[in-house]
C-alpha cells in the first residue's frame, strides 16, 4: 500500500475480506458453502456475498481474497507473490476496471485477451510491490517444492511452449514490469516507475473505455502518461510480437496459430453487411478451456446517432450444431434487456442504442461453458 500511497496520497482502499485458514485447500465448486468448509478451489480474488448473503446487487458484493493453507500440499500465507498477485486483482477491480473472465491459466496458455492482461498485471504488480522480479509459490511436502519464474525474464519463444503475444500473460507481465523497473539490471529502454502505471490504471479514459480492457487499451493509455514515450511502449510490445495499433489492436498480425482470431476486433457497421466471427476451443489446456484465446470473438460497433438496430448471427461453417450467443457491453455492464434470442445455429437481438461505440463478445456456448467444445464460424450483421 505504501507503494501506491507514494504516488497517490489520497488513495482510498475499499474494504477487503481475506479468508485464510489452515483448513483451506483445493477443491470445492466455488460456492460460499464450499468456501466455508475450506474448499476454496485455489487462492483467488473475487467479489462475494459470502459474509452477507442478503446482498443481491453485484455492485455491493465484497472484494474478497481466498488463500490456501493446506500444509504439505499448498500453503500461500507466506507466499508473498501469491498474496500480492491477488491484491493486484483487487487493485484493478476496485481502483480501476478489469474485464477478466477469470478461471484457470498458466504461463504457456494462449488466453482470452482480457484474462491475459489481468493475469499479466497480477504477476507484474506482485514484482513491483515486492521490488523483486521473481514470482515464487511454495508447495509440496514441508513446502519444500515450488513454482517460480521471473517477470523480468524473456520467457516467451515463437517456437513455444510459451508463445509471445497479446493473448499471453507471460508477454504482458514482462511488458508491464519493463515499464516499471529501473536501475541496475534494467535491460529495457523504459524506467517509468509506478507513477505512470498507476496514472494509466486510474485514468477515467482507461476505466471508462468502450473497448475491452486488454494490453492494447492499456498501451494506448500509458503512451499518454508523463515520463513515457510512445516509441518506448512500441518497442516493448514489438519484443513480445504485439504489433496491433490503438485501443483495438488494429492491424495485429500475430494470430497465435489460429488465423480466425484476427483481426482482434471485427468491425461491424449498421447496414454495412456481415462480418465473420468464430468460436473455437483450439487452445483448451490443462487449466481449462472456456477462457482461452478464440472462445470469444470481439466485435466493435459504432453508432453515430441513437437508432433502432437488429443484430443477426447465423452459422456459416464448422460444427453442424452450434449455440451462438453474444453480449453487448457498455463499459463494464452488458445489456440484459432486450435479451438476445437464440436457437440452434443462430441468434438475434433488436433494440435501440444511443450513439457511441459498443464492444460485443461473441461466443459459442459449447465452448464458453465447455459443454460441447467445437469450432464454427458465423455471419454477424447489424441492420
Amino acid at each position, binding site marked *: 500500500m505504501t507503494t501506491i500511497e507514494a504516488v497517490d496520497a489520497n488513495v482510498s482502499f475499499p474494504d477487503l475480506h481475506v479468508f485464510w485458514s489452515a483448513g483451506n485447500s483445493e477443491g470445492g465448486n*466455488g460456492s460460499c458453502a464450499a468456501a466455508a468448509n475450506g474448499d476454496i478451489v485455489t487462492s483467488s480474488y473475487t467479489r*462475494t456475498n459470502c459474509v452477507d448473503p442478503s446482498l443481491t446487487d453485484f455492485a455491493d458484493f465484497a472484494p474478497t481474497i481466498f488463500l490456501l493453507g493446506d500444509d504439505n500440499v499448498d500453503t500461500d500465507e507466506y507466499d508473498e507473490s501469491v498474496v500480492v498477485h491477488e491484491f493486484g486483482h483487487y487493485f484493478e477491480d476496485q481502483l480501476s476496471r478489469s474485464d477478466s473472465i*477469470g478461471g484457470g491459466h*498458466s504461463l504457456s496458455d494462449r488466453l482470452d485477451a482480457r484474462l491475459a492482461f489481468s493475469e499479466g498485471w497480477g504477476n507484474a504488480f506482485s514484482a513491483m510491490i515486492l521490488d523483486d522480479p521473481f514470482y515464487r509459490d511454495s508447495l509440496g*511436502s514441508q513446502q519444500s517444492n515450488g*513454482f517460480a519464474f521471473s517477470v523480468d525474464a524473456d520467457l516467451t519463444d515463437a517456437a513455444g511452449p510459451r508463445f509471445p503475444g497479446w493473448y499471453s500473460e507471460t508477454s504482458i507481465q514482462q511488458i508491464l514490469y519493463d515499464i516499471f523497473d529501473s536501475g541496475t539490471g534494467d535491460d529495457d529502454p523504459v524506467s517509468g516507475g509506478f507513477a505512470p502505471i498507476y496514472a494509466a490504471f486510474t485514468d477515467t479514459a482507461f476505466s471508462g473505455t468502450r473497448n475491452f480492457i486488454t494490453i492494447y487499451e492499456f498501451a494506448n493509455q500509458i503512451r499518454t502518461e508523463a515520463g513515457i514515450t510512445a516509441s518506448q511502449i512500441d518497442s516493448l510490445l514489438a519484443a513480445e510480437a504485439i504489433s496491433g495499433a490503438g485501443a483495438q489492436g488494429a492491424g495485429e498480425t500475430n494470430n497465435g496459430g489460429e488465423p480466425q482470431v484476427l483481426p482482434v476486433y471485427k468491425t461491424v457497421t449498421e447496414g454495412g453487411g456481415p462480418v465473420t466471427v468464430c468460436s473455437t476451443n483450439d487452445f483448451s489446456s*490443462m487449466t481449462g478451456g472456456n477462457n482461452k484465446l478464440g472462445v470469444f470473438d470481439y466485435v466493435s460497433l459504432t453508432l453515430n446517432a441513437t437508432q433502432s438496430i437488429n443484430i443477426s448471427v447465423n452459422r456459416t461453417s464448422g460444427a453442424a450444431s452450434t449455440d451462438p450467443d453474444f453480449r453487448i457491453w457498455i463499459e463494464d*455492464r452488458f*445489456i440484459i434487456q432486450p435479451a438476445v434470442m437464440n436457437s440452434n445455429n443462430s441468434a438475434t437481438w433488436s433494440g*435501440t442504442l444511443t450513439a457511441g461505440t459498443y464492444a460485443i463478445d461473441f461466443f459459442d456456448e459449447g465452448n464458453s461453458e465447455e459443454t460441447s467444445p467445437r469450432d464454427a464460424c458465423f455471419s454477424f450483421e447489424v441492420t
Partner: protein
Amino acid sequence: MFQSKTYSSLAAISLIGALTGCMQHSASQGAAEPEAANTAIVTQLAPPVQTKKPAPPLSFSHEMSDLVGAGETGTVTFTVNEGYPFGTLILEAKGGDGLDVFGASVTTSQDMSNTTTHLWQVNYTAVEDGLYRLHVTATANVDEAVSDARAYAVEVKVGNWQSAASKTTAKATMEMQSDGEPAVILEAEETID
C-alpha cells in the same frame, strides 16, 4: 423457432468458478439497474469472476485400491496430465504421519515428449488403522527459465479407519468468551530466561 434466453445462465458462462452464491443473483433477478444513457435498455454489471493464482499446466487424478488393513500393502494409481511439449516430469510421493510409502515408485522420472498423460502407482502401508494423507508432488523440468511444480494429496483409509478416527477427535471443548468469540482454552506454560 426462437427460444427466449435469459442471462441467468450467462452469469456463469464466462465465469467458470464464479461463486455459486453469486450466480444465484442473475441479471433477471433484480440485480440489474437501468443505464441512464440508454433508457430503452437494461444493463447489468459483469458478474464477479474468480481470478485464480497462476498454476503450471499439471493436473492430478487418482484411483485407490480396495481397502487394506493395518500392515497390508495398498496402492494408489495416479494419473498426471501435463501440457508440456517436451522435458522431464519428476513425481515424488510422501506419506503423512503414520503412513509409509515405499518401493521404487516413490520417486519416478518420466519423459514428457511422447505423451501428456502419465500413470503412476504408489504403494503404501500403515501399522495402525486410521485415516491418513498421501502427498505427491509433480515437477516439470522444461527449461531453465521456469520451475513448474504442483502438489496434490489424497486421503488413505486403512482398516477400521472410522473407529480409529473417532479416537483421535479433539478433546478440547469450545468455550464462549466474554466478547462473544468461541475459543478453545489450552494449558500453557511459559518460561522466561
